[in-house]
């Protein structure tokens, strides 16, 4: 009668539950906010959830820094049958970025959202915000291909809602959100088609299991089609250059706090998924054989770096300029992938993090300027650097990091990228990286000049932004400098992640630190 297993069950501790807690905390917070339905409580709960996620992701990071991974079996069903959450250096790093940004954005959002969105929408705004956080963390934490899609859609749908909340300032937020919805859904559906093809070939949805079964399947048409669908689908979410059309409007018209969070995390999570599928699920050799990376991805990456930077130079709105700059920066990440080496992937991973904090600092400055000047058209923010010294200085620091001046985080990632280019023997790519950075000098200098060398606009409020905005902004700006000098955390994690990713299947089948073993441990 009794079907209990022979070995007595050892109760799991909180430490074993960390991978699921990462997703579960914000997931439970969102309905709790709706259930309580009070806007002051809503903010507090969202902030609490973000802080707890940060703690969890930090603990996870500490556990996997040595290149091991944690496997958590949902419902006790062992993979490949059950859904598995699998944390290794690559995703712990991205989890840390996402939860860190959320923790920084929420204090910032308190004033910014109160200024930009009517009070009756606040509760649902924070509920949606935690849903975006849930989705992004889930996308990154899970080891199940279909789960990626589900979490992707959770975060995307909530993101569309958040973007549309810009309608109280500009009705174009609505059409921006609609366009984003159409493009995002097409992207996600392409991704599902890709997963469907993979499922047809392998009969499994667990990414590690899939990877093992895909070995030697490089000539299989279905697998090639799956690869194409997944890359294009995710490319839409990443905003790879020709698929970026939703991005400028969405970033520009979304409420400031939302833009900060989106710019720093959502495209980054998508880049991570792209990396995970390219290198862990499909074999690096497979990707290399198709020659896709260098001859298809690299030209688009270079195009993004130059075209988007050039467009950014001619903008007259700070926020819109930064949106185009983001497209250019995504180009650098793709370039790192297309160089196809451990160094190139480290560059991508470290740029993912560094660009995240840089753009967080800059977009927070935008939010502070919006609060005081009403909008961020260049003629409205003239001279605001003088009356808002802290905000102005944060723009300068963020700008330096965006350009890649030594001593800032941006320099580190570009340095590694240039190294990777030389390693691959492509010195002209290194030259192009430097050249496109010069474009960043032009567009950032224009902003700095406007902020400092003009007299302030008479209609703007001549006052520094409130501390609740300045402190998160300066934590992000300080991080740009900190991670430009002390690179042990970022480069260490990026390197471990890159080695794991380049290892292909091997990278996914190391010995787990806790949880069940997945067959052939190394």
């Amino acid at each position: 009668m009794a079907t209990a297993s022979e070995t007595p069950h050892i109760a799991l501790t909180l430490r074993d539950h960390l991978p699921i807690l990462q997703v579960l905390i914000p997931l439970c917070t969102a309905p709790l906010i709706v259930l309580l339905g009070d806007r002051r409580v809503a903010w507090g709960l969202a902030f609490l959830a973000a802080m707890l996620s940060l703690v969890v992701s930090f603990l996870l990071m500490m556990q996997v820094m040595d290149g091991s991974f944690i496997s958590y079996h949902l419902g006790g069903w062992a993979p490949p049958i059950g859904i598995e959450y699998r944390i290794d250096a690559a995703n712990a790093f991205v989890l840390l970025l996402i939860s860190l940004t959320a923790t920084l954005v929420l204090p910032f959002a308190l004033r910014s959202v109160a200024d930009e969105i009517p009070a009756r929408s606040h509760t649902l705004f924070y509920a949606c915000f935690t849903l975006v956080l849930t989705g992004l963390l889930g996308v990154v934490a899970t080891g199940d291909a279909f789960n990626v899609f589900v979490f992707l859609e959770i975060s995307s749908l909530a993101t569309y809602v958040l973007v549309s909340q810009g309608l109280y300032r500009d009705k174009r937020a609505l059409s921006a959100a609609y366009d984003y919805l159409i493009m995002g859904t097409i992207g996600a559906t392409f991704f599902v088609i890709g997963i469907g093809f993979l499922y047809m070939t392998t009969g499994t949805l667990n990414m590690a299991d899939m990877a093992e079964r895909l070995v030697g399947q490089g000539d299989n048409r279905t697998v090639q089609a799956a690869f194409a669908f997944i890359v294009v689908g995710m490319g839409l979410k990443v905003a790879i250059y020709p698929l970026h059309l939703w991005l400028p409007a969405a970033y520009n018209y979304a409420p400031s706090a939302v833009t900060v969070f989106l710019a720093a995390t959502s495209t980054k999570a998508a880049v991570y998924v792209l990396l995970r599928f390219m290198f862990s699920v499909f074999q690096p050799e497979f990707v290399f054989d198709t020659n896709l990376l260098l001859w298809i991805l690299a030209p688009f990456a270079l195009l993004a770096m130059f075209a988007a930077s050039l467009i950014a130079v001619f903008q007259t709105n700070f926020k819109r300029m930064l949106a185009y700059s983001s497209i250019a920066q995504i180009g650098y990440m793709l370039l790192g992938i297309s160089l196809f080496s451990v160094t190139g992937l480290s560059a991508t991973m470290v740029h993912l993090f560094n660009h995240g904090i840089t753009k967080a600092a800059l977009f927070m400055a935008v939010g502070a300027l919006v609060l005081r000047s009403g909008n961020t058209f260049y003629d409205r923010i003239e001279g605001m650097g003088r009356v808002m010294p802290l905000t102005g200085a944060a723009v300068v620091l963020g700008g330096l990091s965006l350009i890649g001046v030594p001593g800032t985080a941006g320099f580190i990632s570009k340095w590694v990228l240039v190294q990777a280019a030389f390693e691959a023997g492509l010195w002209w790519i290194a030259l192009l990286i430097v050249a496109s950075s010069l474009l960043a000098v032009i567009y950032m200098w224009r902003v700095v000049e406007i902020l400092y060398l003009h007299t302030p606009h008479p209609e703007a409020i001549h006052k520094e932004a409130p501390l609740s905005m300045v402190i998160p902004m300066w934590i992000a700006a300080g991080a740009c400098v900190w991670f430009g000098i002390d690179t042990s955390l970022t480069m260490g994690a990026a390197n471990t992640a890159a080695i794991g990713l380049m290892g292909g299947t091997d990278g996914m089948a190391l010995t787990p630190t806790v949880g069940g073993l997945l067959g052939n441990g190394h």
Partner: protein
Amino acid sequence: MTLEFFIGHINYWLFIVLMMTGFYIVVSAGNLVKKVVGLNIFQVAVFMLYISIGKVTGGTAPIFPTDRMGKIKADPEIVYSNPLPHVLILTAIVVGIATTSLALALIVRIREAYNTIEEDDILEIDARTARAENIIHGEAMGGRA
């Protein structure tokens, strides 16, 4: 390409036709609601693909018979269809419903703000707003918005 090949892959052909029909509507339709309809057809095509690959020739419903003690006594002779794609698509359908209702909600708000749901008109209104911004903010800076 023989007839057998064509007939044997009929579910894929139908999937491709349906998918491209939906995709074409999304791209070409000027009406925002029609775009959403196209998006739905596009998604449904993918659902059909998944469901059709769950079919196992001669397979029956994947419900294992149990004895009185609740122990599964599956007959190895019986072929079962694969239920997993169906479960996945149940989730995808829910996502599709959420997407559709959100898109329609956005359209309602767009109609309230723009008084139209034709893409061309919206683009024109947006362009006019951008031109006005350009005149206010751009000329002051000697550039374009």
